[in-house]
């Protein structure tokens, strides 16, 4: 069966003004238990790549600049 691209709203938001991934930080990507965050090749900033989040918050708690906000995923909010 061929694959489609269906869009989905993700719960984790990164404030690009605060994110220092371009200076080498990868903390949120490193700690996420579900491994759903990545650094964008386009912007050099962290973002949520996969909508597979436990809304557990290590990404937000450990970010050195307070750039991450975890929201409740839409389906259960």
């Amino acid at each position, binding site marked *: 069966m061929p694959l489609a691209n269906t869009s989905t709203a993700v719960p984790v938001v990164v404030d690009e003004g605060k994110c220092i991934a371009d200076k080498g930080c990868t903390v949120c990507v490193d*700690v*996420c*238990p579900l*491994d759903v965050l990545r650094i964008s090749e386009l912007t050099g900033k962290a973002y949520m790549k996969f909508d597979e989040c436990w809304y*557990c918050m290590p990404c937000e708690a450990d970010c050195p600049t307070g750039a991450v906000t*975890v929201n409740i*995923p839409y*389906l259960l909010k």
Partner: protein
Amino acid sequence: MDEIKAGLSEIDCDVLVIGGGTAGPMAAYKAKMKNPDAKVVLLEKANVKRSGAISMGMDGLNNAVIPGHSTPEQYTKEITIANDGIVDQAAVLKYAQNCFEIIQELDKFGIRFQKDENGDYDVKKVHHMGTYVLPMPNGETVKKALYRQLRRARILISNRFMATRLITGKSGRIAGAVAVNTRSGEFLVVRAKTVIMSMGAAGRLGLPTSGYLFGTYENPANSGEGYAMAYHAGAKLANLECFQINPLIKDYNGPACAYVAGPFGGYTANAKGERFIECDYWSGQMMQEFYKELQSGNGPVFLRLNHLHKETAEHIEQILHTVERPSRGRFHEARGTHYAETMIEMHISEIGFCSGHSASGVFVDEFARTTVPGLYAAGDMASVPHNYMLGAFTNGAIAGEHAIDFAAEVDFEEFDRTDVAREQERVLAPTRREDGIPPNQIEYKVRRLVNDYLQPPKVTRKYELAQARFAEVREDLENAMVVRDSHELMRAMEVASILDCADMAACASLYRTESRWGLYHWRTDFPERNDADWKCHVLLSKQADGSMGCEKRAVQPYIVPISDDEKDAYYKQRITAEA
């Protein structure tokens, strides 16, 4: 990151620990402490710093046996009764005897436990009979404190490696494990003299009612590989029909949590605000009453705190919104729910396997040994019932100390190299297809079927239909699943475990033709408990012909006797007359 690369490396060690959540770090630490010259490897699918059920911390110990407050014998009796008699007491008693030492050790690591003004442990009563719940005022530091000890002890940590299969040797003894890097798809073969499994619960079995695949009670990284790997290695699994089903905050799907709120006067209430169960300690019998109330005109069910003093309710809110599941404050905020004002709607969770909360696990004895020589299991995936976090730590320690001694006495077990090649082929098969069905759709379907057919009350005909549907999905999984990168490859391996667990849940439940453990194993075709035929364990394993099968195993004679008038104490949950 995420593109699939070819690669295979191999390492050797004395003790391989798989799963770096709670039990795993303690197992690795204790093994290394006992023999500092030994090579101990800790393999983790995520990152040990923030992995597992306790990734953000814990509110307290749910089952602390503390001198002066309770005895190991009292605890063993309580758990035997709570688990409806199906307990090999040696393992529970051993836990109860050892856990205080572990508390003291955790204290040394910097984790604090609540004390009263006299400096005595401030243990609370939540269980039906005894007093075992101990709050942790800096519970958010657990993971950091553990991690520091692992670094200090020079444990070799391999993060982002997901174990997919155990390797056993020609004699049936454990030989190691195969793992895949979740960001590159490269393989790692670990040859090990002993292996300790601590991969947590099978938490992604049922589908949460929200429909969100990752909105589970358990940390969704715990997708049941521990159970599936043990099964494929020939180990026996105990009482899988004793499902985990928990009372949770509806939609948010986190603990409500009566263990925290109960000692302050909070309780589970029906829509009229009335208490309907005697004891908020999680058991199948309690869940049965919860379920009945939900189904009756008295539902839905709520956590009630709004009768308490405003400051008390806010204090509870503050604990519950900061430690274990800190996003729940945001959840309530968005809905405008304040604990001091409104009752909080609750619901029952999806089904799962977890001995931490119920009893379904890989069968182990009091030394955490499985039925495969050299293979150990501890924590939520091992069969010691109602074990919680302190059980994971304590039994992890027992496993680590036993395994390191075992490793000193044996050499590496020989194994057939084609087993590794076959496993590589199984893992990579979905990467070789151009199109097909992605893992998330297969996962959704399996878990939706689990809800439709396996969720109690258990109906024989529905279970048979489930087995037929699972077989169809297995065809798709084996012949049509497609993945495009290493992240999806991890999800593909996870869904294979989830499907194995679904089949195991069905097989074990059909085998036990009685009802037991309240809601956990309520069979409508066999509504009565039948002690004459079923006061025994059900052990599930892979049979010689490759099929899945079950057998009975006698419960070991009790060490702590249970009298007839006590044995049904957990069935007396329903509040009948007004006090």
